[in-house]
């Protein structure tokens, strides 16, 4: 069984090489950009570690950016019209915020999870949800996010509310969730 998993993994790698835009290994390896500078790392830099912490003011050049991003990244759902994968104008800013963060943090990975309402068949809805996830991915790509950072998957109708009576209910199910990796 393990053997098969490796075979599948190998196959996936081959496919990756064939299909996606050329990867930039240097970018992937570059951890210095993404690692937030923590207090403990800074202790050595200012030369007064340990004894008198209260008086020390640590400056973290990345932290402000991260906080700003965190606030803007709080919104992680993009809703769609019925049977549509077009990103509505009201979500352009939300997508741009995530793109900005991801472009600045090339090691951060994101999964875009597409969802649909319950009307239609399970597998067809899985494909529709995928199309929505891809629409968001394409928007992120345009704004400079690398393919290697994004995985698109679909839950189709599997997480939909059941027995919706009207579109007020259905519309909550037609969305892409932006889910950040570790």
């Amino acid at each position: 069984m393990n053997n098969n998993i490796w075979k599948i993994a190998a196959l996936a790698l081959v496919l990756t090489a064939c299909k996606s835009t050329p990867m930039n290994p240097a970018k992937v390896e570059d951890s210095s950009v993404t690692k937030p500078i923590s207090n403990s790392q800074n202790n050595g830099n200012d030369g007064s570690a340990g004894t008198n912490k209260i008086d020390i003011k640590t400056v973290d050049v990345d932290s402000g950016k991260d906080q700003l991003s965190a606030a803007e990244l709080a919104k992680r759902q993009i809703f769609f019209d019925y049977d549509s994968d077009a990103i509505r104008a009201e979500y352009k800013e939300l997508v741009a915020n995530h793109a900005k963060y991801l472009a600045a943090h090339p090691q951060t990975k994101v999964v875009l999870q597409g969802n649909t309402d319950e009307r239609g068949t399970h597998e067809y809805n899985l494909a529709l949800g995928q199309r929505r996830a891809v629409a968001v991915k394409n928007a992120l790509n345009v704004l400079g996010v690398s393919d290697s950072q994004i995985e698109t998957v679909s839950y189709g109708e599997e997480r939909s509310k059941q027995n919706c009576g009207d579109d007020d209910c259905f519309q909550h199910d037609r969305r892409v969730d932006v889910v950040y990796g570790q």
Partner: protein
Amino acid sequence: MTLTGLFVIILYITGNLKVNNIVTMTTVKSRLIDNRWASMHAFFASILVWMFANPAQAALEIEISGGSAIQIPIAILPMTEPANAPGKSRIHEIISNDLKGSGMFRVLNTSGVPSLPTTAADIKYTDWTALKAQGLSIGEVQQAPNGNLKINVQVMDVLRQTPLLQSTYTVPASQYRHVAHLIADQIYEKFTGQPGAFATRIAYVTKAGKRFTLQIADYDGFNAQTLVSSNEPIISPAWSPDGSKMAYVSFEKKKPIVFVQSLYTGERKVVANFKGNNSAPAWAPDGSKLAVVLTYGANSQIYTISADGSNLQQVTKSSSIDTEPAFSPDGQSIYFSSDRGGRPQIYKVPASGGSASRVTFEGGYNVSPRFSPDGKYLTYIRNDGGSFKVAVQELGSGSVKLLSTGSQDESPSFAPNSRTIMYATRVGGKGTLATVAVDGQVRQRLSEAGGDIREPAWGPAQAAPK
């Protein structure tokens, strides 16, 4: 053909295995054990029969609508049974329900007959010709050694006053319902000339709260057993052609991945786990490979992959959605749904790839194609003015019929005898299963007490006596 023989069958069920605290698997093994008896009755030597010992969770709610124009009148008489015979339904009731539900039989009300015979010698044929019965079944259930039951059935040709069938089964008490279905299959075949599909199994997914389970049950929903359960969705169960394995899609890793699980050993393999979605498994008729849908590029496209996860080959190459593949029974073509023409329609493509051609032309939305095993029919779901219904298309003539009456009907699949289609429907806001005859004449519903039930797949015919 007269069936005589002796089954000695024992069921082993191993306990639940915990896997990652998310997915539990139940391993089910069944085997024919008593070789001495088996070899004495070589007729049955190669049989491997499925059995289930768990209490029923779903049950067929016999709610028959319509009926075939020509129904065979038959009398299924109560058998002589021991007081501790298993279950709530008596064997003649199970046989009667099978035959009635097929739409091909009219099971006669015998309350007007003064004394019902229990042996062939007691039969007063004039009572039964008066009722216009063509067939009459009698029999007995007896205790046998080692907790087994010995079930003897005789079916008489009323007009000729001769026996049509005589069978004896010696089985564990847990096989009581299974024997009833086997008897119903024999009667069905004797009178219609076509094999029955009562002693068959179905797979389906239930959702109770946040818990998804993939279950296997008798065709009437009795003796349900859990194959896999998970807190993440499970969809698209697909039987291997030999009935020994189940392919399905599990979201347990937060994305759709195609697994194949052996029913007998519980061995579970990842068949497709590529970047993006992996879904819609469909077996080739020879069981060597599956069609799957991957979103490796962007849109859902159809690929084939060996059952061991090797030899991936792309079948469709389009910029549209291509999904829900189904192999034609000859294995040469893959039928699938695609929105390449705007709205989703069914297309076919050579299984080795190539150019696709459209199959459905009526209706603005047709999805979920599935073949009848005899290759004569294609069933699919049509969106008919906002309500999703089961349609059947005769492949020879191209004529199409809408068969179901629900508004959210999904997941049609054929019985192994190509006579009946099972599908998912919603009743009172809850998913249930239903069957409809391919001629649209008879419908039945399967209800479950607990959760939501969806995505049925009718299993292949069980190994036939050789």
